[in-house]
């Protein structure tokens, strides 16, 4: 009941937040961005045609009316159609979210499991050679730009050594699998550096707590202490870290999707930005904000589930 009340109150906070997000979106696209009609109509457009299109797109309305249109779409989730492709934006999202998730979800799961396992090992051997080597490796991995992994991976692993597909995507399982293996590997390599460093810190924070000393004094094995006690207590910051990443998964990866020709939401954002497709950009901005807020709420609720000492107020 307490969780329900808390969730309801937090969801009500969405209203002022959405008004603010709508204002930001309005300010960016309707005030700052300039007139999109010349790009939409092409080089030969006449002034009369520009005026006609402005009227049809609602750009001649007062700023207040334009802002209210955005607010309306933010609360009804009816974002209309793309200016460029004339598709319903809801259709674009439903068609594109799946390819994005086929890349990001396995990548996220693999990188999360791997990084937790490795961070447990390095925490266990803290200060030893293995720990130091992995820390150095993590920093090395993080210091290289993601583009380098993509370009080198695509050029050597796919094109030269023919271990993977260079690019492409096929709808449906298992046809998409060969196309996502290399991007998944690159995502995992990119994530390992920051993830291991973060989890290692979180675990080490717990390792020096009194309850660990007590457990040792009670004669529990190090394995039991790590897996049953330390890991459980380290779950709270880990959950935050994971859940906050979930909305980013749906949005895909701009670079990976573009280089590997995966028709996901990430590549759609790039297309929309390149073609001044404001309705799509506005919809994505608003939906992403909503997703971020909702997933934040889920994180808070999960805290209480994982750690009964945390009270939701």
């Amino acid at each position: 009941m307490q969780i329900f009340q808390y969730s309801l109150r937090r969801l009500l906070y969405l209203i002022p937040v959405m008004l603010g997000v709508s204002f930001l979106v309005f300010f960016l696209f309707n005030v700052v961005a300039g007139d999109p009609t010349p790009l939409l109509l092409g080089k030969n457009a006449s002034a009369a045609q520009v005026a006609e299109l402005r009227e049809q797109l609602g750009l001649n309305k007062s700023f207040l009316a334009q802002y209210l249109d955005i607010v309306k779409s933010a609360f009804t989730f009816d974002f209309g159609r793309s200016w460029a492709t004339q598709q319903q934006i809801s259709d674009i999202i439903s068609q594109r979210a799946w390819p994005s998730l086929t890349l990001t979800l396995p990548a996220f799961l693999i990188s999360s499991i791997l990084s937790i396992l490795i961070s447990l090992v390095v925490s266990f051997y803290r200060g030893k050679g293995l720990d130091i080597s992995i820390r150095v490796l993590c920093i090395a991995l993080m210091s290289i730009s993601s583009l380098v992994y993509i370009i080198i991976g695509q050029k050597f692993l796919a094109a030269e050594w023919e271990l993977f597909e260079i690019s492409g995507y096929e709808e449906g399982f298992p046809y998409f699998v060969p196309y996502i293996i290399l991007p998944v590997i690159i995502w995992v390599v990119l994530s390992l550096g920051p993830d291991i460093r973060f989890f290692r810190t979180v675990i080490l924070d717990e390792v020096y707590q009194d309850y660990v000393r007590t457990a040792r004094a009670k004669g529990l094995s190090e394995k039991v202490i790590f897996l049953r006690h330390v890991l459980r207590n380290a779950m709270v910051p880990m959950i935050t870290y994971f859940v906050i990443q979930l909305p980013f998964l749906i949005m895909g990866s701009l670079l990976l999707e573009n280089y590997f020709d995966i028709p996901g939401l990430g590549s759609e954002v790039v297309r929309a930005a390149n073609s001044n497709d404001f309705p799509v950009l506005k919809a994505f901005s608003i939906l992403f904000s909503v997703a971020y807020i909702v997933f934040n709420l889920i994180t808070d609720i999960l805290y209480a589930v994982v750690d009964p000492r945390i009270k939701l107020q």
Partner: protein
Amino acid sequence: MKKFFMPLVLSMFMITTSCTKSDSAKVKADGSLEKVLNIVVGAKVKGFDPNQASDRYSGNEVARIYEGLLQFHYLKRPYELVPNLAESMPEVSSDGLTYTFKIKKGVMFHDNACFPNGKGRELTAEDFVYSIKRMADPREQSKGWWLIDGKIKGLNAWKEKSGKADKTDYSEKLEGIQAIDKYTLKFVLSKPFPQFLYSLAMPFTYAVPKEAVQKYGKEFINNPVGTGPFITGKYTQANKIVYTKNPNYRDEFYPTQGAPGDKERGLLKDAGKKIPLVDKLVVKIMTEEQTRWLNFKKGKLDSMSIPTEEFANVMIPGKGLSDSFKKQGIVERKVVGLDVTYNAFNHEHELFKNNKKLRQAMSSAFDRDSYNKKFYQGVSLAAQSVVPPNIAGHIMNFKGPYQNFNVEQAKKLLSEAGFPDGNGLPEITLHYTYSTKSRQMAEVFQQNMSKIGIKIKPTGVTWPELVKLVNTKQTMMFSMAWGADYPDAENFLQLLYSKNSAPGANGSNYSNPEFDKMFEKAAIMSDSPERTALYEKMYKFAAEEVPWVIGFHRVTYGLIHGWVENSKSIEFDHGMAKYKNINMAKKADLLKKL
């Protein structure tokens, strides 16, 4: 754990190796191999509505599905119009105002759910009347309206009336476009416009069935239904479009005549054969250059333009294509663009108005050679005036008097203009559409001008901002390029016609009564030696007047795998995939060398 892990790893490998929908050729029912043309597109394709096909990418895809009355001859140069859905070239009245077309009989639209029982119906003259009116429908916002704006009798009035009405009335008869009978179509123009026929070869004017527009509404753009040589299903904006050969395509044949040298180059090997020659087209949308390049090198794409970073490895100066590519059977293809780049003066600005010497000085101070090497690998052509090569009106070997880099001449002219060593000259703002490359280009121009004492302030803005600044005449100078809509010098010379001043195509607001007089005379002349002579006169006139600092006609190089046959460079390449062929035996052989 081991028991579980090993089968998992093995199954992953099996999935990797077995589930790729292979690029290798499939065997057809008659035992021959399926011929697939793999085409790459470097940007997203908006969709399949001819009304919206303003960019080259969309135009190409539209033209695989839809067709127009006319098309460009695939092989002949200079470009020549030939019938496509028209039975023959039109009868034109002596006053140049009436064009009567006979259209081909028995041409069928693709089978589609928009027709009764899903069976495509026959194309009639009414389909063209509908499609042209659709270009004028204010509710459709056609990007091709400029092409027929003010040219077809009664159409502008109909457009205006439709804008005020609640609904567009397509049933209203117009004098300017009529279906005389099922197969006869008549256009009546409001004034002579010899370039009108080019309009009818452009994707904007291709025939669409009204049943499809009515059924799919806003989604018509994603549900292509035409009469063309290829068919595809609903477009979902995925990164691949697969077309299959239209089984009901009428009897159309590969041309039997070409330009000199075409026969020797093997371009007439398929002369007289029924088209399309391939079974399938796979259009792959790859926005990243590296992705395109790696796929091309592996033979997964049949052709592509040479990436900028790879140019020095691929094309050896003085030798052409490098041996390693030649050994793989790859051939190069040079494409001279029908375009011109320029840094325009705003002639309504006090500084440039009637100050020809200043304009000439700036043009003389522009070092085109080093600019060409820096930005175009040294292969583009320094423009001598406004009309590009391969169009009547361009003069081969003509040297513009102020197109050569000559600092001494530039300084002298600047002094004669009243600004010795740039003294008294204010800083000149040069607006350009922001990108890293265009910023560098503007900075090189700035350095060139500083050598004669002229201060340039490069200012990068977004494209919509630049259009706004140009249209409202708020620039001093701006960088621009113009690509041909059709192969006629008029399309370039109109950029200097005073009545096209901003917000029209003449964004530089150049105005010269003598030029206007020549333009107005040429604009109503049909293609003839007299008109070419007049175009050439205007070409020389513009070179002397320096309305802009004229830059380049851009040249690009493409690479094609040796198994692609009938590949000829054509600027207006929409609809031309039907002529391409694949030599399957050669492909099998060459793939081993990649």
